């Protein structure tokens, strides 16, 4: 394990504290895995999982703020994403493999119990972790994801693994990303998020989406022991908020939160994301009862 340490100034909208960022280059299944590690190493570990085709950079504006609020924020790049090398066997189409990868990251960093936050495939992986990690997971915040297989065309996505089948990929990523960003987000921010999302490997993105379509953990929901909150944005065209609400009701300590004016990427869209996550986690850890909230 190689560990780089640097000190950075938060560029987030709310926090200005100087925050320590450590970067780990782990070796997992024979390949380098890149992991950001923000904040005090004795603080509550918070695992932050990114969306399909993207990387930990999606948390760049909020990780320092979360660290300032008392979390040790662990932000891995899944295999083939960001600065992590691709899996040895090729692009991953099983989100369960990413869940195992995330637990291995925590093992290598000697982290036992943790809070998980994830979005889209990261949200579904968060639910998966809530099922499989047992007592290790303290609380789970799954955003923009339900437990059942996502509504995508597996056949079409598989066809588009061949590059000749997928023209204007960057254009479509740009416009498609913009289309699922919430109405509360400024035009400048919307364009920046969409532009950043174009930094993807299309083969990896498509493989992730195949995993999104196939991965169904509905049967495991009643077995989730940790308090869990499922979060859906009002302007998220990728998910069915009512289905997510039903999934939350199937989790013994589950709750549901609806975000007006927010789309598919709360951690990139919400200016108060860190404080909101902190509030969710505190609420989850303090409450045994399922609740439903709408954020004003």
């Amino acid at each position, binding site marked *: 394990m190689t560990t780089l340490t640097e000190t950075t100034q938060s560029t987030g909208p709310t926090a200005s504290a100087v925050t320590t960022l450590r970067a780990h280059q782990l070796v997992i299944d024979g390949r380098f895995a890149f992991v950001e590690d923000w904040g005090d190493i004795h603080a509550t570990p918070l695992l932050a999982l990114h969306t399909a085709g993207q990387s930990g950079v999606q948390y760049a504006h909020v990780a320092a703020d979360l660290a300032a609020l008392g979390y040790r924020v662990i932000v891995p790049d899944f295999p083939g994403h960001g600065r992590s090398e691709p899996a040895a066997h090729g692009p991953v189409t099983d989100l369960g493999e990413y869940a195992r990868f995330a637990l291995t990251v925590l093992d290598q960093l000697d982290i036992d119990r943790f809070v998980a936050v994830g979005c889209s495939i990261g949200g579904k992986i968060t639910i998966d972790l809530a099922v499989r990690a047992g007592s290790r997971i303290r609380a789970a915040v799954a955003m923009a994801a339900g437990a059942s297989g996502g509504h995508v065309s597996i056949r079409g996505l598989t066809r588009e693994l061949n590059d000749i089948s997928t*023209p*204007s990929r*960057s*254009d*479509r990523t740009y*416009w*498609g990303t*913009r*289309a699922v960003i919430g109405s509360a987000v400024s035009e400048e921010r919307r364009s920046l998020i969409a532009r950043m999302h174009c930094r993807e490997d299309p083969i990896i993105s498509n493989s992730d989406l195949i995993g999104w379509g196939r991965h169904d953990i509905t049967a495991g929901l009643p077995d989730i022991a940790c308090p869990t909150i499922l979060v859906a944005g009002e302007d998220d*065209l990728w998910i069915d908020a009512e289905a997510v609400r039903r999934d939350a009701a199937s989790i013994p300590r589950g709750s549901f939160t609806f975000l007006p004016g927010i789309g598919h990427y709360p951690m990139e869209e919400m200016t108060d994301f860190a404080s909101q996550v902190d509030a969710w986690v505190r609420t989850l850890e303090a409450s045994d009862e399922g609740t439903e909230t709408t954020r004003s």
Partner: protein
Amino acid sequence: MTPPLAPGQRLLAAAPALAPGSTLASADAVATALRTEIIDSSDLVSADVVSAHLELKRPIAEPLTPTAVVTAILPDRDAGVRAEVTAYLDDDTGVAAVLRLAFTGAVPDAGALDRPDPYSGLLCPGSREWNAELHRLLSEDESFAGLIESYDGTLGISIGGRPVHIRCYRGQVLEVVARAIKGADFVLDIPGEVFVDLMTSGDNSFMETAMVGKMRSAGSGYEYLRMTSALIRIIDNARALAGTAGYVGAHTTSIETQQVA
């Protein structure tokens, strides 16, 4: 003085719930109410139904409440006017059925009107006049020229059933017509009411509209995907056209400049 009809104009805004009955009876009641409202609220002196198409989205649950929007207005050869209207039949959970109607109506003699040209062809997307104006706008749009720089082909859209073929070559728009000689590489079918929404939304919502399945493409899927940004730019230009032509709710009269690069 009564105003002219225009695309985007909302009708049946204060309509009560429909009396219980068969779906066809409900459709007939809506057509009758629209006929009355068109005559009462516009300068048409008659409005006769000439076509009707009922699309059921799911099993109907009463009571149904109708709303409607004008999607196209077109002068016809007999100095009358064709008005196309889409009506929505809503139940408790949303739109249960969509009823698309066309009326023909007579306009008063020119002397009775206080304007020289009661209905411009620009009020009908896909008309000869609308196509010519779109051609002019696209030909003057350097951004659109860049998006079709490597394209030799014909983009097709169908708006409310009217085909619009945009023939392009190396950054130039050669023609915008109802039917290019060799047809279109693909055709994107946009229902009239969906096109009105695209013209009147706060921002160009082409991608959102495509993602929720309100438009369907046929022909070459490859070229359709390749032309994504060009199609968005066409909608930018159409929105500017709609704002200038007086579509109700269209507020963009200049071509927006949200671009990929």
